[in-house]
């Protein structure tokens, strides 16, 4: 029983990070029809900033680790948002709804950002000092409090983003634009502005996932690529642009990851997952919940 509880908790935890990451990707696609390959670098940038800032803040400001962690997260989110705004204004804005052009552009950004991140942070893996070493028993499994807190934070964040999309005017505008942007414009929605907002929401989700992952795993400038491959599998399964599909697929992939990682090894799991995706494509080319456009 304890084993299953551990596996379950692991699934929820990885799943919630996958969900934040892939939701960002899928929202950007929905609103802009752009597959952002630089998404993983924004995620890595946030994680690296947190990993670099937490020890610095603790050392220089003399504040408790929780405070320095909070400050680092705020700084990382602001920095990555600014970076995202630059990428949009000086790049993606010109390639809205142009899949080929934006793809190549985002590959350019990927190489550029990765090189810059390696240059600034070096390739050496970093570890963020843990906030607390405490463990507790949850559903019969033993977990660190830190893991539980990050997991809860990811779930709360994802729920609020979904709430935002479902219930606010802004969310309605985002949905309208991803459904039919011309009809949305006829209703007086400013497409350029909404696309920008949608892009920033997506970027912030990547950054948030990065901040949450930083204290749990080692952080390197190359970590973005692993998550990007996973996120692509998730959006293929869930359907690009579909929020509920992405949420569902995130947890399915996280479950496969957890089980595969436990019984086999991560590489075999990735390969097996791809075989499953191919099978799914034969049966349902548009993904589980995707539209077929």
């Amino acid at each position, binding site marked *: 029983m304890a084993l299953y509880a551990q596996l379950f908790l692991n699934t929820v935890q990885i799943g919630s990070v996958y969900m934040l990451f892939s939701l960002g990707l899928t929202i950007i*696609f929905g609103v802009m*029809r752009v*597959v952002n*390959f630089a998404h993983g670098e924004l995620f890595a940038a946030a994680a690296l900033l947190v990993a670099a800032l937490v020890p610095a803040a603790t050392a220089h400001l003399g504040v408790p680790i929780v405070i320095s962690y909070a400050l680092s997260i705020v700084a990382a989110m602001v920095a990555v948002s600014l970076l995202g705004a630059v990428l949009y204004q*000086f*790049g993606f804005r*010109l*390639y809205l709804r142009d*899949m*080929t*052009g934006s*793809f*190549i*552009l985002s*590959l*350019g*950004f*990927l*190489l*550029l*950002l*990765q*090189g*810059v991140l*390696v*240059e600034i942070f070096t*390739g050496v893996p970093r570890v963020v000092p843990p906030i607390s070493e405490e463990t507790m028993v949850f559903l019969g499994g033993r977990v660190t409090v830190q893991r539980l807190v990050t997991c809860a934070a990811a779930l709360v964040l994802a729920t609020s983003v979904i709430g935002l999309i479902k219930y606010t005017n802004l969310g309605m505008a985002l949905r309208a634009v991803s459904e039919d942007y011309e009809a949305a414009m006829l209703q007086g929605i400013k497409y350029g502005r909404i696309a920008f907002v949608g892009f920033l929401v997506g970027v912030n989700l990547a950054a948030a996932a990065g901040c949450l992952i930083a204290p749990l795993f080692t952080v390197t400038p190359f970590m973005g*690529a692993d998550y990007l*491959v996973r996120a*692509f*599998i998730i*959006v*293929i399964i869930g359907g*690009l642009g579909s929020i509920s599909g992405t949420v569902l697929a995130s947890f399915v992939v996280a479950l496969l990851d957890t089980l595969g990682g436990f019984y086999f090894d991560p*590489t*075999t799991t*990735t*390969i097996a997952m*791809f075989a499953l*995706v*191919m099978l799914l*494509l*034969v049966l349902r*080319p*548009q*993904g589980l919940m995707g539209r077929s456009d």
Partner: protein
Amino acid sequence: MNARTSSTALVVLAAAILGYAAYRPTSFAVTVVTWITVRSIVAASMRFVMLIGEINVASIGFVGMGAYASGLATASWHWPILAALLLGAVVAAASAAVFGFITLRTRGAYFLLVGFSFTEVMRLLYTQVEAIGGNDGIVGIFPPTWLDRWFPALLIGTGMTVLYVLYRIERSMLGKLFLAVRGNERIVEAAGISVLGVKTLCLVIASFMVGIAGGLHAHAANVISPGDFGFVVAAMVLAYVKIGGEGHILGAVIGATVLTIVEQYLRGFGALEHALFGAAIVAAMLFFAEGLWGLVHRILDHVAIPPAAARKPQ
């Protein structure tokens, strides 16, 4: 320049390069030309699939298959080199037939993402199989001794032939059919032609060519490892196509040539090499979206023909 003079000039240029490669096979310049040749084949093949309107990131996966199959045939089974190269091409094309038949039901963003995953999964797969060297890859893939002196010329000649064949197919009725699929699938379907079949055929032809490129690469480098076939390579190849210009097959060649030469100067920048490459792609997308080929054309049009006559309907 009219069509005849420019094609004569091209043939003369090609003959000169070949002659020099046969005359000085070990010079650095010839080595760089062999790299450019392999990359041009891959870039031209990626552009070839763009004729049906898809971006084929999986192409690097097929380069890897060609390289591994022909490398294994030479290094472990001691096949004659031409048979080994042919095996690489056939393996790549056959895998592409299966891959295409399944994945070309999707299009646009999905096809691109599946191709991306495919390339990464193939790379992972190579690291897992001990029979093909796992993480270390295959070493000791040498062309036979009697051929050693002529190998660069053979490689470059093969590359030129491949590019010419791709060009001829593009200009043929089949090429028109590919363009028709990109323009409007439904019309093609209504004419009683299987769109999935046409698309798969296009992918298979392109993959046969990159299979050859993979085999040539394996025999020129003598060593291959899984890292040579990651998605970053796909990004680079796409940069050759985009920076060179999508409009013409020579754009892919120009892009591969210019960026390979630029790369020689960027060596020693370490991680910044990739960053500068990325910056070059971004700059190309922002400032000259039709690529170098488009740029050259625009300049030529301005110089040679009065502007009013140059405006062709697009």
